[in-house]
């Protein structure tokens, strides 16, 4: 092609790109690695039905998302934990009004290697294991081998939740190896016969779940969509979307769509636990 023709095509390509960018709304979603798969799936589906909206989803941990919201670097923050007092205070100082909506539920599963003879653990056993009081599998009915602990980094909402609810705010045993994401934890436990890990249910492949009971007398429950939804499974939590102020316009449409039966069904399809119908309706913005 002659040079002039090339220049023309190049310029028109730039023009088309610029026009599409100007003609559309861009929504950024950042935050929890637990939620990122769901966020991406929702974004894909929403963009299919609304071609003039561009949604960019990325992970990095709940802490990263919240920091981004506070810095105005994102429209929506996905978080698998609530914001801390310090963070709420900092937000108000920066003129941000965090608006929190629960968009799905999640159970924190405890992962065991498939070859591990242990099947169930009580809350107290889990706490003792992760604080270093119990260090050998034989103390909980398994083989005579050291328990290798895997966990998340301290910027993870999963880490914070587990610490609050299972460890009662005690420190993790310093021999806990930290990995950058639930998928990495699952991978590590699947390769380590004596490994123990925790993380969102939606990620488990190649490992088995431990049935968890609150006390030694109660029945141990496996984490499934039903047991988490009904509250039977003891380690469950809300997954949140945080906005800066009550969402309007395209953000409001997106939120209401995710809370609609269609959006919640999509969540269930990829192994997240949907909210109950009443709660979903309650959370929608009128």
């Amino acid at each position, binding site marked *: 092609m002659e040079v002039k023709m090339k220049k023309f095509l190049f310029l028109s390509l730039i023009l088309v790109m610029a026009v599409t960018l100007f003609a559309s709304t861009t929504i950024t979603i950042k935050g929890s690695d637990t939620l990122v798969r769901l966020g991406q799936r929702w974004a894909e589906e929403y963009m299919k039905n609304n071609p003039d909206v561009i949604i960019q989803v990325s992970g990095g941990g709940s802490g990263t998302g919240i*920091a981004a919201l506070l810095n105005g670097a994102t429209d929506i923050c996905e978080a698998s934990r609530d914001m801390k007092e310090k963070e709420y205070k900092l937000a108000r100082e920066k003129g941000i009004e965090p608006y929190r909506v629960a968009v799905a539920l999640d159970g924190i599963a405890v992962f065991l290697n498939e070859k591990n003879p242990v099947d169930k653990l009580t809350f107290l056993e889990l706490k003792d294991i992760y604080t270093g009081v119990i260090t050998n599998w034989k103390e909980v009915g398994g083989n005579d081998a050291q328990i290798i602990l895997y966990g998340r*980094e301290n910027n993870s909402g999963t880490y914070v939740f587990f610490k609050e609810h299972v460890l009662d705010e005690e420190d*993790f045993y*310093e*021999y806990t*190896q930290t990995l950058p994401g639930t998928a990495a934890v699952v*991978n590590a436990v699947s*390769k380590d016969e004596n490994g123990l890990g925790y993380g969102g249910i939606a990620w488990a492949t190649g490992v088995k779940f431990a049935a968890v009971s609150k006390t030694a007398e109660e029945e141990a429950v496996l984490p499934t969509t039903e047991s988490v939804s009904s509250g039977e499974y003891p380690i469950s939590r809300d997954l949140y979307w945080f906005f800066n102020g009550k969402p309007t316009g395209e953000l409001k449409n997106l939120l209401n769509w995710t809370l609609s039966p269609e959006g919640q069904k999509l969540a269930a399809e990829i192994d997240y636990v949907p909210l109950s119908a009443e709660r979903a309706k309650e959370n929608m913005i009128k």
Partner: protein
Amino acid sequence: MQELKFKPKSKIREFLGEKFISVSAFSALIGILLIFTFIFKEAIPVFTDPEVQEEASLDKMVFKQEYYEGRDPKWAWQPTSTVPKFSLYPLFLGTIKAAIIAMLFAAPLGVGAAIYSSEFASRRMREIIKPVIELLAAIPSVVLGFFSLIVLATVLQNVFGLTFRLNAMNAGIALGLAVIPIIFTVAEDAMTSVPNSLRDAAIALGANPWQVSFTMVFPAALPGIAAGIVLGFGRAVGETMIVLMASGNAAIISGDFFDSVRTFSATIAAELAEVVFGSTHYTVLFFIGTLLFVFTFIINLGGEMALNRIKEKLQGRTE
């Protein structure tokens, strides 16, 4: 007479050209100064702010602390605990352990390859070996980290029957792979810079190639090889991605090389994204960053300066 190929340039153009180039050179220097200033500025509250010093004064970061009444004083890194703990010692130990393993693995291999390549290899072999080893330097560190996380860790665990799959040895070997090209390049350069007159003298006195290398060339190049090892050490200390993925990131104090470690660089990478801006945790992370910066800067500067002096000496130049 032939026409002059280079027309005499105007004085102004020459002057501007010179100034422009020197500005570019200085901007790199200024950049480094600015980076250091920014990092150090964020770390200053460790020395000045009483609120920060309550949890993380220099004293608290270095020595054992009694965090809970009645329990033994200990070193611990738990910055997000209800009682925040900021001991730097476990992190320091982790950094050194991983770096030492990397050097023990990389130095013999790198120097050995350099000796082979400069003294014993045929010209053709050298033309193949040199670029291939330097290709190791082109592998992104995240790929090396991924390799050691998925493949190397399993291999090590099966061969040695280890308790911990992700440990210092795992990270150290992968770090070593990243460091080998640095040591190789500098050491090889040092050995080829040794003037042939030394080799000729040895041969004239009846030495065989082996003796020439180890009694004449190697000692002469030793300062250069040492500089290469020092530069490699600097790289091993600062490397982040490999240790983040392969070392297990557990901040423990132990002499066992098969235990997990947590390094300075991995700590910053893993935790900085979350911290509340301006908090004690934030300040301590920047303090660690300053430490790393200063340490690697001194190592690299020292290595470079030593190298320059050696080169001048060997090539017979005087200042």
